[in-house]
């Protein structure tokens, strides 16, 4: 069989089509210079055609995004004040009616075609791209590992305890978010706690491929979930599994300040083999009378010989809050007691746990505006 003709033909056709497309693009796609105004004060100029997300990335503004611009994750929500054009069908799946009227769009779907004005929360400008090197990897449980990343460039990071970073998965345009587990006072390296998710893109890479000395690229810090330092309320922290990360950051930070506020930390796991950092937390408990750590197992195995709290973490919290209220019954009668309303709460864990915990807390009188949470 003669193969030469088809191969030559294929190349000719390819060449013709490429030339045709390049020609069409130069004729059909308008090339004009557009202005992008961010928060009324930062003005950029750029050539039209690109999406807002790629424009941001090019200008070193890092906004949360996981899917690489395919409109499948819905993380890159931003507020477009004008010039964004009508909302696209690909966005409608992610944007609620309320957000729609507020001008929220997916940055990866908005193309810059004219002068455009957007609003970004100030803290996003603090997000940068970091190069880091893996300094240490250790196993915490059968499926959770602890990573220490030493920063190379920039050399330090400023974040609030509770915030997260996004790790770039090598070889893809995708990112995965992980909360920082270390105190912000240790600003030359960060620690992460990552659970191996079955079939997970990034966690599989982090667990099975990454070795000490490898380089990692991440962006951050992001997130509205962080310790409110202006408040002096008593704190209740509730975490499940990897929800330990941001809570540990908050507690280590408070410990470095000498534990100025009373903190009670409820940590839920299924069996004893899913528990971790119990020793570290118990030691903090001994050192600071203000801090109380209450681990609980939902399904303890007989061989665990578990003597601590048993039950779903929310049930344990409910029992504790009952005792807490009872102890103050007399103060309550005298009219000086505001109930659990004096509490501030930080929750991190799987969505069903968060939803159940919010229900319990509000039922016991914690004000919903004092409940901060991070679902993952």
């Amino acid at each position, binding site marked *: 069989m003669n193969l030469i*003709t*088809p191969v030559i*033909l*294929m190349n000719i056709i390819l060449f013709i089509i490429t030339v045709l497309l390049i020609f069409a693009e130069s004729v*059909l*796609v308008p090339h004009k210079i557009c202005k992008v105004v961010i928060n009324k004060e930062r003005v950029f100029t750029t050539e039209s055609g690109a999406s807002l997300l790629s424009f941001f990335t090019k200008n070193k503004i890092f906004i949360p995004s996981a899917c690489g611009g395919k409109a499948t994750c819905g993380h890159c929500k931003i507020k477009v004040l004008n010039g964004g054009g009508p909302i696209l*069908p*690909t966005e*409608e799946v992610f944007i609620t009616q309320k957000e729609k009227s507020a001008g929220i769009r997916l940055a990866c779907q908005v193309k810059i075609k004219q002068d455009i004005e957007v609003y970004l929360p100030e803290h996003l400008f603090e997000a940068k791209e970091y190069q880091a090197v893996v300094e240490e990897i250790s196993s915490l449980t059968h499926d959770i590992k602890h990573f220490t990343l030493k920063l190379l460039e920039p050399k330090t990071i400023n974040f609030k305890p509770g915030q997260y970073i996004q790790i770039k998965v090598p070889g893809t345009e995708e990112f995965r978010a992980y909360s920082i587990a270390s105190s912000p006072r240790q600003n030359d390296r960060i620690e992460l706690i990552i659970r191996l998710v079955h079939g997970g893109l990034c966690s599989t890479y982090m667990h099975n491929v990454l070795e000490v000395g490898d380089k990692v690229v991440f962006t951050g810090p992001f997130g509205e979930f962080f310790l409110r330092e202006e408040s002096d309320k008593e704190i209740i922290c509730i975490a499940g599994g990897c929800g330990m990360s941001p809570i540990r950051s908050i507690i280590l930070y408070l410990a470095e300040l000498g534990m100025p506020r009373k903190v009670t930390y409820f940590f839920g796991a299924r069996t004893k083999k899913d528990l971790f950092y119990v020793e570290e937390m118990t030691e903090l408990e001994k050192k600071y009378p203000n801090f109380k750590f209450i681990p609980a197992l939902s399904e303890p195995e007989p061989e665990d010989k578990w003597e601590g709290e048993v039950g779903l973490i929310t049930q344990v919290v409910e029992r504790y809050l009952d005792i807490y209220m009872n102890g103050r019954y007399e103060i309550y009668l005298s009219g000086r007691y505001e109930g659990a309303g004096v509490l501030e709460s930080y929750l991190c864990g799987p969505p069903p746990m968060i939803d159940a915990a919010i229900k319990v807390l509000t039922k016991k009188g914690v004000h919903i505006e004092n409940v901060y949470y991070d679902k993952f």
Partner: protein
Amino acid sequence: MNTHPLLIFIAAIFPHNIALTYILGMCPLIAISKNLKTAFGMGISVIFVVTLTAVINWFVYNLILLPTNSQIISYVIFIITIAASVQLVEMLLERFFPPLQVAFGIFLPLITVNCIVLAVSLFMVLREYDFIKTVCFASGSAIGWAITIVTVSAIKEKLLLIADIPKGLKGPAITMIILGILSLAFMGFGGMVKIR
């Protein structure tokens, strides 16, 4: 062999529905069928792109590949022409019909990788259709696919409103079940028209 083109058109919509009897073009059927409006936009774009690319590929195959005896590269060439024509159409829409681009144009890049676009071009070669039959077959197949995605999304919207779907069946799983039942239902059209 001498089937009337109109028969091919009808057969491609119902008894030989490309989604429900050949199980092609499943990814968008499962992923983009959450909302009726989006599904409709997708369906219209598929009808347009499939018909257009089948016509282009018919000319490419019969005028270039057959005379030079180069059928062996038809797969590659078909994919290239599909990708290029979709790109071109997107640019044309964006320049001259911006409202259309907003409504349908954004689906065009997604369609390039839809299996039915390539499948229709390959079937046309396999079944040795002439030009008229190709146009009928391509538009029929695409209309059949559009009907399927619109039906599935309408059913899913309804289900979301009234049904208490078990946890393990939410999302793609229930879509698969809907598709299975629809596929059984479309077997009922089987006796209507027979084409090869």
